[in-house]
């Protein structure tokens, strides 16, 4: 079945038109990802208006090209100028830049490129086999479980908001509120229009997204008047050439770091709302801990570079699995893709892979292919990157502001959407300046309708509200949400040496084991039992150690 669908999808993805669009997408992603301050999300968001006139598979292939290209492109600036092109390549600077400064920029770029490729490839293989399984599990979800899954996604997005948990939660809930403006999707009644007709249909998703992510980001980047007028780098790296053969040898020498980091990236991608900005640092940290020479990290060691680049590309596969199997975006980019699918009247859910097999497997094939295209096009893009970074930021920024306006206008052919863009651009800018994270808010906007729909379904199906807390999957997501909400407190407790932090992991294992124990099927029940027994044993051991 999988093989048949893959063959059909191959036909769609390998159409000449689609290949050309993907190549353009990869090139655009490589360039956009490499420019410091321009995030991958921004690049995918800007590509979205161009995809309106395309078929869903063409549109998504193009965006996937931008996505994968952007993830790899982030390494150019990280390695050559020591400034991360995107947040997903922060850890690349730790060893990539020292390696470049030590006179080996070609090797650093080669290792980054090939690690990205292998990381993406591992992730693509897992995507093909895991997405249908996860979707099958998703079919067990009732509206109560789905509602709690959305809650978990918002909580985890907030908990990852680097020390601003409460602000992250507020941003997520404000996103839910924004999503409730306009016509109610359950009953069709207008809400919060304040007698303003244009608000009757609510805010279109795209202008909100571009306003929050692209518009506000550009203005933040241009805030420094002096820096905005200068080119990003001088022209001394013009002659950089990648050392492919040496790079592949280095990667195979450190295959353990590659595999571990790819799986860390994949796992982080599976978590709703957690993206490559987290996975690259996590993978780097784990590789350093596992290394026999941790003191070499930060001085230009290949495993550090491999772990960062392999993990950030692998995250994309994990995020796509969540989007396709459950309709929950794994990161901000897949939130945009979810929006793109909605524009084509396609709503990913657990039935998506079975009801739209060619499109679903087409996404998987396109993701696979995008990794190969990135590999092929990187050398050319490197030259483009070196050219683009000689343009002062304000010139690029102002032009892109106007492109944002043209892009959102094409959605509904209405200037109201451009006003929305401006309003959310200001809101996003003010939020960032006051320490409010934007990702939870965007997730709130994306997931708001899904949350409301499932809330309404749950409430109208049964008067028993306890089902929100007693059904195994709902309970599982509550446990995950609570533990992710308390994660920042746990991190602080570890730093300050608080005693209760010793039991956090054990408590999590025991609590997560309980809903698994209650689920159907011997595997999950068995796993749940083992987790509970293990947690009790570990708890007793830790108590003995503490005494």
């Amino acid at each position, binding site marked *: 079945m999988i093989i048949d669908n893959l063959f059909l999808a191959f036909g769609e993805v390998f159409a000449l038109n689609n290949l050309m669009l993907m190549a353009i997408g990869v090139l655009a992603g490589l360039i956009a990802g490499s420019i410091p301050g321009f995030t991958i999300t921004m690049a995918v968001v800007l590509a979205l208006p161009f995809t309106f006139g395309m078929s869903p598979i063409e549109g998504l292939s193009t965006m996937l090209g931008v996505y994968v290209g952007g993830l790899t492109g982030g390494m150019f600036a990280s390695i050559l100028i020591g400034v991360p092109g995107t947040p997903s390549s922060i850890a690349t600077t730790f060893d990539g830049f020292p390696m470049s400064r030590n006179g080996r920029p070609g090797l650093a770029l080669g290792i980054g490129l090939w690690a990205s490729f292998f990381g993406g490839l591992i992730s693509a293989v897992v995507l093909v086999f895991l997405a249908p399984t996860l979707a099958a599990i998703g079919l067990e979800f009732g509206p109560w479980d789905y509602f709690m899954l959305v809650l978990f996604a918002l909580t985890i997005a907030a908990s990852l908001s680097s020390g601003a948990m*409460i602000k992250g939660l507020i941003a997520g*809930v404000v996103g839910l*509120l924004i999503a409730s403006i306009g016509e109610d999707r359950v009953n069709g009644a207008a*809400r919060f229009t304040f007698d303003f007709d244009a608000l009757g249909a609510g805010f279109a998703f795209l202008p909100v997204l571009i306003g929050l992510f692209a518009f506000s980001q550009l*203005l933040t980047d241009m805030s420094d008047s002096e820096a905005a007028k200068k080119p990003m780098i001088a022209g001394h790296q013009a002659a950089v050439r990648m050392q492919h053969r040496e790079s592949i040898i280095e990667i195979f020498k450190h295959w353990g770091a590659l595999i571990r980091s790819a799986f860390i990236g994949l796992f982080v991608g599976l978590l709703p709302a957690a993206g490559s900005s987290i996975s690259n640092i996590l993978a780097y940290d784990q590789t350093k801990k596992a290394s026999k020479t941790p003191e070499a990290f930060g001085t230009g060691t290949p495993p550090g570079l491999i772990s960062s680049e392999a993990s950030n590309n692998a995250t994309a596969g994990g995020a796509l699995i969540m989007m396709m199997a459950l309709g929950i975006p794994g990161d901000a980019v897949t939130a945009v893709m979810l929006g793109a699918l909605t524009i084509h009247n396609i709503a990913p859910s657990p039935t998506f892979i079975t009801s739209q097999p060619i499109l679903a497997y087409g996404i998987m094939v396109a993701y696979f292919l995008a990794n190969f295209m990135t590999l092929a096009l990187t050398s050319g893009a490197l030259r483009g990157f070196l050219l683009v970074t000689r343009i002062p930021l304000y010139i690029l920024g102002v032009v892109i502001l106007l492109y944002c306006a*043209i892009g959102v*206008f*094409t959605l509904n*052919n209405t200037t109201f959407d451009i006003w929305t863009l401006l309003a959310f651009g200001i809101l996003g800018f003010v939020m960032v300046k006051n320490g409010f994270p934007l990702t939870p808010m965007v997730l709130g906007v994306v997931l708001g309708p899904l949350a409301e729909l499932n809330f309404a379904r749950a409430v109208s199906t049964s008067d028993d509200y306890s089902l929100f807390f007693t059904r195994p999957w709902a309970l599982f997501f509550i446990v995950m949400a609570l533990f992710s909400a308390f994660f920042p407190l746990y991190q602080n407790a570890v730093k300050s040496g608080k005693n209760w932090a010793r039991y956090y992991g054990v408590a999590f294992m025991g609590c997560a084991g309980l809903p698994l124990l209650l689920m159907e099927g011997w595997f999950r029940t068995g796993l749940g039992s083992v987790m509970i027994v293990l947690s009790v044993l570990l708890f007793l051991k830790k108590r003995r150690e503490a005494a």
Partner: protein
Amino acid sequence: MNKLNRDAIIAILLLMLCGIFFWQTFYIREVPFSQVGSEIWPRVVLVLLTVLSVIYLFKSLSEPRPETEPFSLSGWLKTYRNPIICFVMFFVFLLALPYLGMLLAGILFVFITQTLIGGATPRRLVMHALIAVLAVGGMWSIFTYALRVILPGGELFY
């Protein structure tokens, strides 16, 4: 308790926003035979937002006030000069759009904004003008001729 800091002011504004939106939920039309009223979900969200805003308010009041320089309008304007230019110019661009159309208004927006941020030396003026015409004209052509999207033409040209 500390004096109001920026976080506390934001928390109070959020609480006011919650109040206004909650009041608006009483004006949402009741749909006959619906099992879940259209006002229920927004109220759930607003209650959640209110609780979070109250926590945020107490947290911001209980934390020590960060050492900051006294507020000065000129300093603030200097810090946010570029974003303010962009916002104002984008606002003016939107006002001009129905009259001038996307192409002309776009070219003017890019040219004037770049000149205000980057400076108005003769060399820069020429460079900004070239970039404005090529970048906006190019994108306008792609949408109009390649993608067949009709962008606003402007009243002046009809």
